């Protein structure tokens, strides 16, 4: 006998479940269907991906005979087909969360957005439609994707819109590139990241306050938090003992822990703690090395600091229920 059926029986004898519920559970377990939803959908998308990759390679190899404009036209047609599908299938807009109309909707919407980016890049590469004004080229996707994200209620598109906005300001914020492609030492990066971060946190705040697509606020704030923390840290890393950035970091840590308490969000609590820890640890080791002592006392203090600080941070993190007020 299945464990769940057995449990249902036992709970029945303990008066926690009625005869009816017990039968309902056993009936459910007996007739439960084996769903291949995820598997089949993955296969389908893999197939689409393979076929389009193959098509892309074929086109690339035969570009001389086909011609660029034909391909641009083809991408444009595909892109508009995606968007037309989304517009026809969409549910009416509300300020609340809307679930997607069918299983393929999300993917078609995303494909449409990606095709749009490809189309734009292709046009710029081939025909230089924007000339040297790269700003416009990066602003257009942002201007398109923000309304689309709200219209179709899609967090992925919202993330793309935010990324495009950041690109417009002149930095790459795709998660993998954030740490490798930016010039951290420049003030330009720090200011740009801070500006965007503040803008996005305001967006998150308004989203919550006005109750417009409340579930978007996490996406906004997540981008904002990471950008601002990285900006503060890069300030700390690149400048000599820089009190301003340390104060900034402290302010950010305070703000996000407060936010975490309000929203009962462990995620923001943890990133605030970790970013703060990185900043403080960096400064402490920086100051240690400034002292120009022998390696032995430096290493001794360093290791002691790491042991003691981790010990207290573990104690601190374990108090999260008290701190976040979930208990």
């Amino acid at each position, binding site marked *: 006998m299945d464990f769940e059926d057995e449990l249902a029986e036992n709970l029945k004898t303990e008066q926690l479940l009625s005869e009816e519920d017990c039968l309902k559970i056993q009936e459910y377990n007996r007739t439960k269907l084996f769903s291949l939803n995820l598997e089949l959908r993955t296969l389908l998308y893999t197939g689409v991906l*393979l076929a389009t990759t193959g098509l892309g390679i074929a086109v690339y190899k035969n570009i001389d005979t086909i011609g660029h404009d034909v391909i641009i036209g083809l991408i444009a047609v595909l892109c508009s087909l995606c968007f037309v599908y989304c517009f026809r299938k969409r549910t009416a807009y509300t300020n609340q969360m809307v679930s997607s109309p069918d299983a393929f909707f999300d993917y078609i919407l995303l494909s449409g957005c990606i095709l749009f980016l490809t189309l734009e890049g292709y046009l710029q590469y081939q025909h230089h439609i924007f000339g040297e004004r790269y700003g416009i080229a990066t602003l257009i996707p942002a201007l398109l994707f923000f309304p689309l994200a709200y219209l179709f209620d899609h967090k992925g598109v919202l993330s793309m819109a935010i990324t495009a906005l950041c690109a417009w300001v002149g930095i790459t914020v795709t998660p993998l590139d954030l740490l490798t492609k930016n010039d951290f030492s420049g003030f330009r990066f720090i200011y740009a990241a801070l500006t965007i971060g503040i803008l996005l946190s305001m967006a998150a705040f308004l989203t919550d306050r006005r109750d417009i697509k409340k579930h978007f606020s996490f996406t906004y704030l997540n981008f904002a938090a990471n950008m601002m923390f990285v900006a503060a840290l890069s300030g700390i890393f690149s400048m000599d003992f820089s009190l301003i950035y340390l104060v900034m970091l402290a302010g950010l840590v305070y703000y996000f822990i407060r936010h975490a308490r309000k929203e009962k969000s462990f995620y923001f609590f943890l990133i605030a703690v970790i970013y703060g820890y990185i900043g403080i640890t960096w400064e402490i080791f920086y100051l240690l090395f400034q002292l120009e002592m022998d390696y032995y006392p430096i290493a001794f203090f360093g290791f002691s600091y*790491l042991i003691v600080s981790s010990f207290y941070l573990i104690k601190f993190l374990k108090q999260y229920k008290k701190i976040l007020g979930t208990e």
Partner: protein
Amino acid sequence: MIAYNKNWLDNLRIQNIADKWYRKGLISQLQAGNIKNQFTSGYKETNPFLRIGLALFTFIASVAAIGMILLVWGFGDSWFGTVFVCVAVLCWILLELSVKDNKYFSHGIDDMLLYCSVFYIVLGLSILSWRNNYDFNANDILFISLVTFPILILASVRFADSITSVLAYICMLLIIFLLVEKAGEIGKTVMPFVMLLVSFLVYRLVTGIKKNGHMYYWHHCLAAVETVSLITLYASCNYFIVREASAEFFGLVLKPGQDIPLALIFYVLTLAIPVVYIVLGVRNKDRIRLRIGVILAALAVLTYRYYYHIISTEIALMLSGAILVLFSWSVIQKLKTPWRGITFEDTEKDMAVAEAEGLLIAQTFGPQVVKPNEIGGGGQFGGGGASGKF
């Protein structure tokens, strides 16, 4: 055997089942709350972010502790290995103590202490055996594996950790590989079949144990080993792997036109095994076998293509893509009405959504259950001893 409080683990399992029943709409919120109050557990699902944070700082502390010990004792290389082994033992003792005294179960600290312990002991032993002859050879690896294997088994059994279980299995394969290799020419020839046999035996053993209800605490470990054993079973007789491994480890040199011994058997097995997995997976409604079968079938096709370029890459991509789309589309259409208990409908949807939201929205505190008769029972998360179940 298991270090954790079995009663609490049982109750945690019951709580999770009650949650599932509630999500599926089989019982009311009130009933779920009642069940949870009846079966209290000191353990609870830890917030994944908390787990990451605690594990991170545990790791930093342990590394700094090693640094500190080395600093105090001096950096002489005669110490290195010993220090690591000592810290490993220390980690283990700490782990035992924290599990015994506290309500830690998959909590971040206990996970990380276990991994640190195992990692340091392997590292320490490697340094010690390397020091002995300044030449790291197969016998050293065999020695380290032979010592590590029982530790990994003990770790898996006591702390029900799936990663150490998989490592233990891989460690065992490594030992067998090194021992069979010692048999010389015969060993090299029979190696794929030995690996195949061992994988198969482990697979049978693991699936057998999994059926036993009393082994529920290790269910996830067994499932992990089952998955890996299915993969190694295939790897041991995949044509590409056999051929390249023979060249790499046994110095096999093939002249043009030559092929590895028993090539035909490997060609057949390369495709036959994924097909068997898929068929068995569909027939027994076993997701592990089905998924691995599909992935391995793709690898089988790649294996053939690696040695025989019949069609160009783009044609192959388009063709396989088209076949996949046609196949999955037609199966989806067919399964819209359930066939032999298999459906395309998303029966796990509520759960998947809950999981995705847990990751994305980071609000993993779960739905607040109404606690109607919370009288002196210590509540949902209250410690033990109050519910009469102990």
